[in-house]
């Protein structure tokens, strides 16, 4: 079998998998539970706000965005990880975490004009989905060593 110095392709593949698991643990695990719940609630509020008319979206964003930033900073301090601007999540992780919520909000846009309560339902769903995904993926990453 062809090898490179002392490293076979199988060993290289195993090493890459190990590195990937370590990165996933940093991306997902160690967050305090309140980070997922509070951020989910903030996103839920924004999901509701986008259905409101005019400047309401900006007014909500002006309050919610700094609050989300403060929550993220506090969570980073609590878990002992300073992520910087890029974060540890891969584009795939980000899609898993935010993708369903964005699709839900897009699907709600035409519906909310006819059904008054749909934006409220979507806000609750967005909160629950974000918090649920974060908590579940965090627990899963913590289990994989």
């Amino acid at each position, binding site marked *: 079998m062809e090898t490179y110095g002392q490293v076979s392709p199988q060993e*290289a593949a195993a090493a890459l998998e190990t590195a990937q698991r370590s990165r996933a643990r940093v991306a997902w695990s160690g967050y305090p539970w309140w980070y997922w719940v509070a951020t989910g609630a903030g996103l839920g509020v924004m999901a509701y706000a986008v259905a409101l008319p005019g400047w309401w979206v900006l007014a909500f964003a002006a309050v919610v965005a700094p609050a989300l930033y403060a929550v993220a900073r506090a969570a980073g301090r609590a878990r002992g990880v300073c992520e910087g601007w890029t974060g540890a999540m891969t584009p795939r992780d980000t899609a898993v975490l935010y993708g369903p919520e964005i699709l839900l909000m897009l699907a709600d846009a035409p519906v909310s004009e006819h059904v008054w309560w749909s934006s409220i339902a979507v806000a609750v769903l967005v909160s629950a989905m974000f918090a649920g995904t974060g908590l579940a993926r965090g627990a899963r990453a913590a289990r994989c060593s």
Partner: protein
Amino acid sequence: MTTSRDTEHGTAPAVDGFDHLIHAPARLRICAALDPVREIEFGTLQTLLGISKSPLSKHISVLADAGYVTQRRAVRDTRQRVWVRLTDAGRAAYRGHVAALQQIVGSTRT
């Protein structure tokens, strides 16, 4: 890409960027954890990687001696803690090593 580094084992693999110092499993995990973030507190790194204090400390010393990581002391929750981060050279070496591993794996598929 960085050049191959002839270290501990005294062998130089044929793939550019392959780094024996980083390739040790624990050190690879440490670098993989540090690469996507700015810095991680020592105790958190211990918990995240499931490595006990003494071996983790030794591996970080090896990486620090090579200029791949730096450590700084700072207060967190009213206690002095050690924060660990990859240097630019360490990040470049780690990414070069990962690229080398991908090249090795890819060579079997082509």
